[in-house]
């Protein structure tokens, strides 16, 4: 019999969506030296807190944003979802600047998974050794087999729904495939006609009985926060169990500096809450603020940057979208945007003329997203209005192109400060030739699929999705920010556990793998497999 190790789905209320137990949440004083202080309550921080709380660790999680109640705080509306994104200012530069905010940055308990579409593919075994296999990117100091049991475990906790998955390390899913809408049907027909395999899923959306989590109602607002509790985010998958086991989640608390003893140990974190600067003491600190805020906090604390690696190798995925026009109404706003996908082009194929690959996924923008699409294709005024009136006739496919890690794609501190007096982040991004070739090939493939489906016309936009890297995991202190146990090189009790640790990104949406890395780290910390002392001489 399987031991139940996460009760979140039973702890939720069937009549309300908010997390029960907040009124009796355990609290700590700033002067209490907690066992672990985690900065950021997203995919990494929540899973780590939930796991270690079950081993008796006394934990506080600082979260810059609010503790959401989906019933009262969220709406089934694109524009009204604004508060769930990280809207504080950042400067974007480089040759190919990346839009942040609603595109890729969350705010509040649950992090970016609150607004992620729901796709939860695993990384492929090849992702962990692209340098050896393909001569590009980097090799991870860990490999797929170490993560496999955690993939299986987290897929059960979310739970993931989809058809049996034939790509990467082939595997099945705990919930079966969801029904798909007309727009996805059309796209799939086109793929079949081109000899391209697609499958339904994988999505972290309930498709059957799962504790007190309801079945999906196909309302289509996954990117605006799930008001149903059907789509997974840490708010429903790990936070309830974490609270039940004594974790304090201190929302509306912005970490500004990691404090140290002046040597190799940190002693706590200074943060601002209700306009007052405070300091929480802790025996160990985990930074889990994602690819922009984690490097920013380390840089502002002047920690971990002895090898000038903090903030480097930040990656985004090329996410071009191609929409096809069909004679019938397809009403792509219905159902979750993620419906069917393909990883047939994931690995390197020499004949394509570039290293690594891309995945193909349905995306289905809502009206504002679709209007941005139409504008990007060059239409405004009467032309814009006419394209928009035709909204219900389009089906939209997206690619996720694996763009390569580059040292100069970096988060740094800008000259201006935020309302807390902390320098804001600056993110510079430029593509390389391999990136451009990958995106161009992916767009041509999406177009081929839609044309084979009988699309009368197609429309294309270039965009980016997701963020990873910035505090990458490395085999030596010169090549990255953390070791294979997530410990910051040269520090004894400071860790990073979020998407920023990834040395490469594959063509997979990163949320599942961020949770899986946290699950692995928690197991090692709980079993005391992680040494108490730094594994390398301080830089």
């Amino acid at each position, binding site marked *: 019999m399987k031991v139940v190790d996460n009760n979140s789905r039973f702890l939720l209320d069937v009549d309300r969506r908010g997390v029960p137990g907040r009124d009796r949440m355990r609290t700590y004083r700033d002067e209490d030296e907690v066992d672990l202080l985690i900065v950021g309550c997203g995919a990494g921080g929540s899973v780590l807190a939930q796991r270690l709380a079950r081993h008796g660790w006394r934990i506080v999680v600082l979260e810059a944003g609010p503790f959401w109640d989906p*019933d*009262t*705080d969220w*709406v*089934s*509306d*694109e*524009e*009204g979802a*604004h508060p769930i*994104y990280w*809207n504080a*200012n*950042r*400067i*974007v*530069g480089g040759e190919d600047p990346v839009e*942040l*905010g*609603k595109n890729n940055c969350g705010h509040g308990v649950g992090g970016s998974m609150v607004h992620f579409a729901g796709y939860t593919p695993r990384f492929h075994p090849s992702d962990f050794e692209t340098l050896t296999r393909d001569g590009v990117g980097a090799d991870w100091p860990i490999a797929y087999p170490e993560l496999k049991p955690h993939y299986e475990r987290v897929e059960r906790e979310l739970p993931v729904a989809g058809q049996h998955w034939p790509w990467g390390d082939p595997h099945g899913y705990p919930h079966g495939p969801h*029904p*798909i809408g*007309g727009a996805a*049907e059309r796209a799939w027909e086109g793929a079949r006609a081109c000899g391209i395999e697609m499958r339904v899923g994988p999505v972290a959306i309930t498709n059957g009985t799962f504790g007190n989590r309801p079945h999906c*109602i*196909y*309302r289509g607002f996954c990117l605006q926060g799930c*008001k*149903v509790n059907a789509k997974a985010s840490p708010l429903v998958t790990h936070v309830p169990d974490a609270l039940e086991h004594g974790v304090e989640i201190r929302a509306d608390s912005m970490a500004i500096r990691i404090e140290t003893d002046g040597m190799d140990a940190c002693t706590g974190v200074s943060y601002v809450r209700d306009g007052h600067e405070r300091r929480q003491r802790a025996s160990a600190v985990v930074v889990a603020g994602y690819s922009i805020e984690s490097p920013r906090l380390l840089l502002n604390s002047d920690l971990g940057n002895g090898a000038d690696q903090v903030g480097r190798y930040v990656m985004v995925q090329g996410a071009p979208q191609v929409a096809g*026009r069909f*004679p*019938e*109404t397809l*009403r792509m706003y*219905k*159902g979750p945007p993620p419906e069917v996908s393909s990883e047939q082009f994931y690995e390197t194929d020499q004949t394509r003329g570039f290293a690594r690959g891309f995945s193909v996924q349905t995306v289905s923008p*809502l*009206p*504002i997203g*679709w*209007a941005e699409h139409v*504008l990007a294709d*060059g*239409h*405004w*005024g*009467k*032309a*814009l*209005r*006419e394209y*928009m*009136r*035709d*909204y*219900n*006739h389009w089906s939209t496919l997206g690619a996720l192109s694996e763009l390569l890690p580059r040292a100069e794609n970096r988060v740094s501190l800008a000259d201006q400060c935020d309302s807390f007096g902390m320098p804001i982040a600056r993110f510079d991004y430029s593509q390389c030739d391999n990136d451009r070739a990958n995106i161009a090939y992916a767009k041509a493939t999406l177009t081929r699929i839609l044309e084979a489906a009988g699309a*009368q*016309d197609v*429309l294309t936009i270039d965009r980016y999705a997701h963020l990873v890297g910035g505090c990458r995991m490395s085999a030596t202190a010169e090549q990255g920010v953390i070791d294979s146990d997530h410990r910051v090189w040269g520090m004894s009790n400071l860790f990073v556990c979020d998407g920023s640790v990834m040395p490469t990104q594959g063509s997979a949406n990163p949320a599942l793998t961020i949770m899986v890395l946290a699950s692995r780290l928690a197991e090692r910390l709980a079993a005391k497999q992680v040494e108490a002392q730094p594994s390398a001489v301080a830089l």
Partner: protein
Amino acid sequence: MHGGGGDPDGLPRQRRGTTPQMHGRYPDFDVLEQSEHWDEPTRRAVLARLDPPSLRFFDATQARTLTAFCDTVLAQDRQPRVPVLQLVDAKLHEGRLDGFQYDDMPDDRETWRLVARGLDEAAAEHDAASYGDADPESRLAICEAFAEARLSGGVWVELPVAHAFAVVMRAVLAAFYSHPWAWNEIGFGGPAHPRGYMRLGIGQKEPWEGEEAFVIDPVADVRERGLDHPTEHRG
């Protein structure tokens, strides 16, 4: 009708509810009739857009220019109009920004004010006192130059035109297509929470969703009528 003309021939007039300019493809669909089926926070957020607060961020001169710009870039050439600038004004006044700023651009709020000045400067070249005073033909021509990053001189020496267009259009599109009148025009079913959607397949619709009464492939029609380059096709 060809050469940058108005609606395509046969586009129906709205019979039920309101659409911007009272045309659309779903003449008997009014999404607001469904609002009793929406959850309360969603209903409150959507219905508030029908009656946005009066201007607090822009002054009267800027408002006149920018209202004319929003109406031109969205082809709102007659009543009823979605109050786009009021919705943008509320957002800027409340500091609801989008979480990033191009390194060659000022803050979005400053960008909007500079764009107002830049449009007035462009209008002066068309012998108009301001963009709002310019004739429809000139407004269209200036809009087209803005969209194609061809404005220059004055404000535009310091302000990158393409990025400025991207910043203002992001807010313009969000305001217009978050308005339920625009949902009526395009046949978007709207919030659907808590009841959800059931009929997902090709050609299907919920019983309460609108029947499409007019179909045209916009790609061919826009090309044929030259709507993407309206001023070149005038004659």
